């Protein structure tokens, strides 16, 4: 096992300048600050630079080297924060290598890796962590809360913890195993299986949640017959499901903005209440 690890390492352990403590500090700083200085010019650039600044200071003893390194990491950077641990770990490993042997690791390689990977890693993090896992936890929390159950908070905390664990694992892994590990992680078959399984789970729950959480009924009566009762006899709660698919159609095929749909729902509801059909 230890042999296997050694062969995949791009950096020789015996000559590492950095300790686990340095790495932990960088992760903590990154998690604390990542989006605080978010801006239109370099997005999370200040935070990225600030987070690894102590490491750069330790690696580059000559002032001009340090200044170059700091400027390099003030360039535009924008990624999912915790999945971005993949880039954080790799960047730190590359900087360490550059500190030892600048010729072997040109600065363009470091900047290139950061800017080249931030898109795909963000896409993975935003869609998988936030889109699927995060959404499921948020919905679980909201459902519990709507029923008056304080365990809702626990559901949110579990997801917050999941994100931190992801950051720690990804940063450590990529720092220790080097550049090539990003591709291995993101392209693995297991990851694809988890994603498609989670997609099925999420879609199933959207239907289940619609039945439980969306309410739309009509008080209409025609010749003494309560319409809603008749409809429920055919297909219970057909209106919520119809509303779901109408909105889905508008979002997906007509590309109507969220704001417009919200206003339309409110306007139609008030109009419906005025006529007396809802």
């Amino acid at each position, binding site marked *: 096992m230890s042999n296997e690890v050694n062969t995949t390492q791009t950096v020789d352990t015996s000559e590492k300048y950095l300790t686990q403590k340095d790495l932990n500090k960088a992760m903590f700083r990154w998690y604390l*600050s990542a989006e605080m200085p978010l801006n239109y010019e370099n997005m999370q650039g200040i935070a990225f630079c600030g987070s690894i600044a102590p490491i750069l200071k330790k690696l580059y003893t000559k002032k001009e080297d340090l200044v170059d390194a700091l400027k390099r990491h003030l360039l535009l950077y*924008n990624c999912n924060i915790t999945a971005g641990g993949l880039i954080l770990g790799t960047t730190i490993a590359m900087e360490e290598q550059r500190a030892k042997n600048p010729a072997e690791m040109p600065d363009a390689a470091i900047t290139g890796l950061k800017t080249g990977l931030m898109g795909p890693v963000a896409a993975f993090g935003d869609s998988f962590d936030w889109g699927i896992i995060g959404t499921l936890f948020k919905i679980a929390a909201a459902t519990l809360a709507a029923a008056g159950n304080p365990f809702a*908070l626990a559901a949110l905390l579990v997801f917050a913890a999941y994100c931190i664990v992801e950051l720690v694992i990804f940063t450590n892994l990529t720092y220790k195993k080097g550049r090539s590990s990003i591709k291995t992680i993101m392209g693995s078959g297991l990851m694809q299986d988890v994603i498609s399984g989670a997609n099925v789970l999420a879609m199933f729950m959207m239907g289940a949640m619609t039945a439980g959480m969306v309410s739309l009924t009509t008080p209409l009566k025609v010749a003494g017959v309560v319409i809603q009762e008749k409809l429920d006899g055919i297909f219970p709660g057909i209106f919520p499901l119809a509303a779901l698919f109408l909105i889905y159609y508008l979002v997906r095929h007509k590309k109507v903005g969220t704001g417009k749909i*919200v206003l339309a729902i409110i306007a139609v509801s008030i109009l419906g209440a005025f006529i007396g059909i809802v």
Partner: protein
Amino acid sequence: MNTVVIAIVMGIMYWWCRGMIFSYFGFLFISSPVTVGIVAGLLMGQPIQGLIIGGGIALVFAGIIAPGGNLPTDECLAATCVIPIAIQSGMNATTAIALAVPVGLLGAFVTNLRKVINTYFVKMAEDYAEKGNTSGIWRCATLYPAIAAIPLLFLPVFIINLVGQDVVVNVMNALPTFVTHGLEVAGGILPALGFALIMNMIGKPKLIPYVFLGYVIVAVGGVNSLTAGIVAICAAFIYVFQKREIVEEVKDNE
């Protein structure tokens, strides 16, 4: 409890979550209407009512994620502005939801403005970098944006909480019944928007039969959401295993 204290706490919560302090902890936990609801509820002696309203608001916003940091609508602004007022005036959850959603739309404006203001710190950080001053850069990443966010994020929520209640109560009382009933109806429909956004984000129209399956098992089968979750997990496993088997069979045949 005192309205001023509640206004301060709500202001701090909004400043924390959209100032993005401790990134996803702020972004996910502090900003959730569930958390805001329970905090506001505890301050006002009605934690469960706060939780119920917060949960209702959170459901509508559940499908909204922020790809690339762009927030189309802001659940935390909605929650911090509406929940205390809703509890105080005894509003029901569905009306609170309908009121919260338009408020959330204003949040996108505030977050964009913050990103404009923060560009000032880029120049500052570059100057510190030139001097090799690492702690200066760190201050540009944390302390200064947090301070700059106080007037932008804390103040509006604080003020709305101070004066909003009377305004909202008066307006709600002045509205004809069909409008308030219409708002309740809208509050009942709005969660469907959240779910539709999630379905769109997953982007797999061929999985739509699973939506029907989920719907039928709850609407017709009448099972609770935990049971529905177990069935959903089973469906997910069946899907993945079937897919794997097919892939392996294809490989064997080759």
